[in-house]
Structure formats: structure tokens, C-alpha cells
């Protein structure tokens, strides 16, 4: 798809319908305005953007129904073909503007054959107007092809794919759960737990522990698809490429990474495999391979597949310097070639070769700045580039630098 575009720096955006469809018999002006309102609301419901309609000529998002060549470099072509477009955010005069082809038969609550559902197309175009590009995901509203009406504008819920992409740009609006995937049975809310019962007290402890990202250490940390994932118990936090938390609240591992056994209460290490970009989860002597967020058939398998003679790994990461996978356990580390699927000769070696790193790491990951990061307890260490020595000034606090916690939260009594 297109490379990521700019996003709006402001969070309050004005809009205005400047010109209306010529054929008002199909859709009246009030209906058009209402549909634009609800199509924008789809995005502002889940992300901290606020849209307000204005009457003046200087609206951020100017909406027009126009036809043929209208002097913006994207001429319309009569019925069918191209039906609408919008300009990405930015400093240009046209940024955010959204144009609908007035040669289309724009409809609302009509069968597909009667025309083009204006609400569905508007949701797509406003996605561009706030910075989203086309995607090939079949279920996404940002797929470039018109896919028919999407139903009642008051009840429309964006596909999860689109939610994640807009959250990456603007973050999550307060009170929105980013783990809630509509229509997916595995995403239905769990029944409430009666925490007073003795048998449920451990559930309470696990949940409380997992929810406190500012004071806990992490079981595993991984860079997956350029984003950072911090795993703790049955939960994980997700950070965008720009190190923005997708949500302050953690997501449940089982609800996102589908196929892990339900009784798995934590993971030891996770990494994205070089080459095929599959994601590998370790727990004890077993490992699972995921294609995207679904486990592959035939897993779990024993970690002896990697040539690891131990009962588990503390850390796994791919070193950008040589694209090899490193496994750490206690005071030993191994180098594995994922392309040839074999352990390199001469390993394990002593972890003291990595100067400045602690023993028994929680996990490690590479990051897009070219460095490798090692995590233990509440602290992390940075090893730049192809060095094998920790950079001066480390360790630093994970909570403060990665998980947006204030000094006060990080320095809670627990930290002792």
C-alpha cells in the first residue's frame, strides 16, 4: 500500500458540505449532511478526533459532489469506475477535502443494485482524510473497491483492522476497548468473576498484577511487525512504531494470539522469525509458531527442534546486525540461523561476552533504531548496532521510557 501519510496535528477538525448532489430526488440535503456526520463519527467514536460542522468556507474537510474533471488531478469518469476520493492530511490547501462523483446514483438504505451507498463510501473517504491509505485486507473499509452498503450508520462498527490502523495514528479514545472485535465469538465479554470466592482469588491477583504496567516486570518483550509487545501473565501491551501505547489497558493474549492453550498463564519469550516473519512463542520446553495471529497446525513442538538442550529460554531476539536469532538461558546464549533452521556451531557461549548485561534476562528484542534492548525486572539495557556492550547510561526504567508512566508511578514502594 501507499507509504504512511501525514496525520493531523490538531484534534478538532471542521467540516462542511460545500456542494450537494444534483439529483436531490435520491438524497436530500439534510440526509447528505446526516450521513457525513455519522461517517465522521465512526472514526471519532474510537480515536481522539473531534469533528464539528461549520458554515464558513475555511473548513478543514470540504465536501463536494462534483463530476468529470474538476481540476484537482483526479477527474471522475461518469457512472461506475472511480466514485470518490479524499486528500490526505497536511499543509496543502486541499488537505482533508473529500469529493464524490455526482454522476453516481448516491443512495442510502437501498439495495446494492439501485446505486452507491453514500455512507459506506464516505466512511472510506474520511479514512483517507484523516491519513489512512488503502489496504488489501478483505474485511477492511479501506479496501479500495466498493463493497456495497455497510448497514445502519448508527450501528456501524469499524472492522478491527481499521481500528488498529487509526489507533496507530491518533491513539485510542478514552473508554474504548481495543481488544473488542465485533462478530468474533472469541471476543465476547467474559462473564464477571466473583472475586470473593477463595477459588477465584488467584484470578484477581493475576489480573491486578497484569494491569499495573508501571510497577511490574515483564515475561516477554518482542518487536512484531515493527511494533513492541510487552507480555505479562495473560496480558500484553502494544506500542506502535513511534512507541505510542495503543491502549493504556492491556489486551488478553488468548484473545489476540489465537490457538494458544487456554491454561497457558504466561509466556517465556517471543520473537518474529526473519525470512517468513512468523511469530514464535516459547513457554517451558514448548514453542508455538504463528502465522499473523493464528497458530499454525502441529504446535506446540519441543524446543529441542532448535537444538536447545535446556528446559526453556529466558530471551529470544533477532540481531539486526547479522539477522541471526539469539537465545539466552541463565548464563548461556546460543546463535541460531533461522534461514537454514539450524544452530550455529560453537554455542552455547557465556553471556558475560555481552558486557554489562545481567544474568537471567526476562527477554530481549531488536528495535527499529538498529539497537538491541534487553529487559530484566523493571529495567532495560540498550546495546547499539553491532556492539556487544551495553551503552553508557543504562539500565533505565522500562515503565518510564516505554510504557508512559510518570516518575511517581515508577517509583512506587514496590520498586524496592
Amino acid at each position, binding site marked *: *500500500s501507499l*507509504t504512511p501519510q501525514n496525520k493531523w496535528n490538531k484534534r478538532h477538525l471542521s467540516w462542511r458540505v460545500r456542494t450537494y448532489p444534483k439529483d436531490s430526488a435520491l438524497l436530500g440535503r439534510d440526509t447528505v449532511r446526516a450521513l457525513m456526520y455519522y461517517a465522521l463519527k465512526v472514526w471519532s467514536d474510537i480515536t481522539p478526533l473531534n469533528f464539528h460542522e461549520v458554515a464558513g468556507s475555511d473548513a478543514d474537510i470540504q465536501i463536494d459532489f462534483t463530476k468529470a474533471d474538476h481540476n484537482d488531478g483526479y477527474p471522475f469518469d461518469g457512472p*461506475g469506475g*472511480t466514485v470518490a*476520493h479524499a486528500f490526505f492530511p497536511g499543509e496543502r490547501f486541499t488537505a482533508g477535502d473529500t469529493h464524490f462523483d455526482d454522476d*453516481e446514483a448516491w443512495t442510502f438504505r437501498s439495495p446494492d443494485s439501485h446505486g452507491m451507498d453514500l455512507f459506506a463510501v464516505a466512511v*472510506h473517504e474520511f479514512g483517507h482524510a484523516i491519513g489512512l491509505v488503502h489496504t488489501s485486507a478483505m474485511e477492511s473499509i479501506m479496501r479500495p473497491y466498493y463493497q456495497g452498503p455497510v448497514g445502519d450508520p448508527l450501528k456501524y462498527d469499524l472492522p478491527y483492522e481499521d481500528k488498529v490502523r487509526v489507533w496507530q495514528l491518533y491513539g485510542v479514545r478514552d473508554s474504548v476497548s481495543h481488544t473488542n472485535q465485533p462478530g468474533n465469538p472469541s471476543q465476547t465479554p467474559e462473564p464477571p468473576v466473583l472475586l470473593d470466592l477463595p477459588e477465584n482469588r488467584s484470578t484477581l491477583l493475576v489480573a491486578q498484577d497484569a494491569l499495573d504496567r508501571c510497577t511490574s516486570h515483564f515475561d516477554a518483550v518482542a518487536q512484531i511487525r515493527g511494533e513492541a509487545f510487552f507480555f505479562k501473565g495473560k496480558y500484553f501491551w502494544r506500542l506502535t512504531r513511534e512507541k505510542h501505547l495503543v491502549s493504556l489497558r492491556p489486551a488478553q493474549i488468548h484473545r489476540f494470539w489465537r490457538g494458544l492453550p487456554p491454561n497457558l498463564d504466561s509466556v517465556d519469550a517471543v520473537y518474529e522469525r526473519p525470512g517468513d516473519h512468523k511469530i514464535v512463542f516459547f513457554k517451558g520446553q514448548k514453542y508455538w509458531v504463528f502465522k499473523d495471529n493464528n497458530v499454525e497446525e502441529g504446535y506446540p513442538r519441543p524446543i529441542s527442534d532448535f537444538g536447545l538442550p535446556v528446559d526453556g529460554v529466558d530471551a529470544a531476539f533477532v540481531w539486526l546486525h547479522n539477522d541471526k536469532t539469539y537465545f539466552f538461558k541463565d548464563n548461556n546464549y546460543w546463535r541460531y540461523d533461522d534461514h537454514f533452521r539450524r544452530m550455529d556451531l560453537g554455542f552455547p557461549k557465556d553471556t558475560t561476552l555481552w558486557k554489562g548485561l545481567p544474568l537471567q534476562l526476562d527477554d530481549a528484542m531488536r528495535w527499529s533504531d538498529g539497537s538491541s534492548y534487553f529487559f530484566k525486572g523493571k529495567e532495560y539495557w540498550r546495546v547499539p548496532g553491532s556492539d556487544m556492550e551495553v551503552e553508557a547510561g543504562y539500565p533505565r526504567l522500562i515503565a518510564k521510557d516505554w510504557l508512559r508512566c510518570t516518575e511517581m508511578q515508577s517509583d512506587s514502594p514496590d520498586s524496592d
Partner: protein
Amino acid sequence: AAPSLTTEQLDTGVDWLSKFGYLPPPDPVTGQLQTKEALTKAIKVMQKFGGLKETGVLDQATLGLMKTPRCSLPDVSQAEGATRRRR
């Protein structure tokens, strides 16, 4: 392209692929034509993006998708297309 393809269908396909970023626009000075290899690659990328079988041929499914109403914005940026060609 497929044996039954008409010149008009081929032209339409090339125009469509250029319009939505899968092929570089033709050089207005030299009138340089697209190579068959570039066209096949572009069709495959388009088919993959559209969820079709990657045949590299302008078959009926591909032509059908090209006729589907859609957004005017390209699917692939020119910068990305250039990178792909260099590789």
C-alpha cells in the same frame, strides 16, 4: 496476456494499472511502452492486492475487478513502484 485479450482490453488494463500506481506512467517524451515483464509483474501485484490468484495475466477475474467501482486514489505509491523496479 491471455490469447483472447483484445487490444482495447489491454489498453484499458494498462491505463488502469498506471492510474492506480501499479505501473509507472508512460514517458510523455519518448512514448516508451511498458515491457511485458513489467506488465506481468504489475498485474500480479494488483491481483495480490485485490485478493485474486496471482497469474500475471489479464484474465476475466482481473478485468472484472478493474471494472468494480472504486476510490480514485492509487493503491501503490510511485516511490514504492520505483523501489520495486530497482530491485
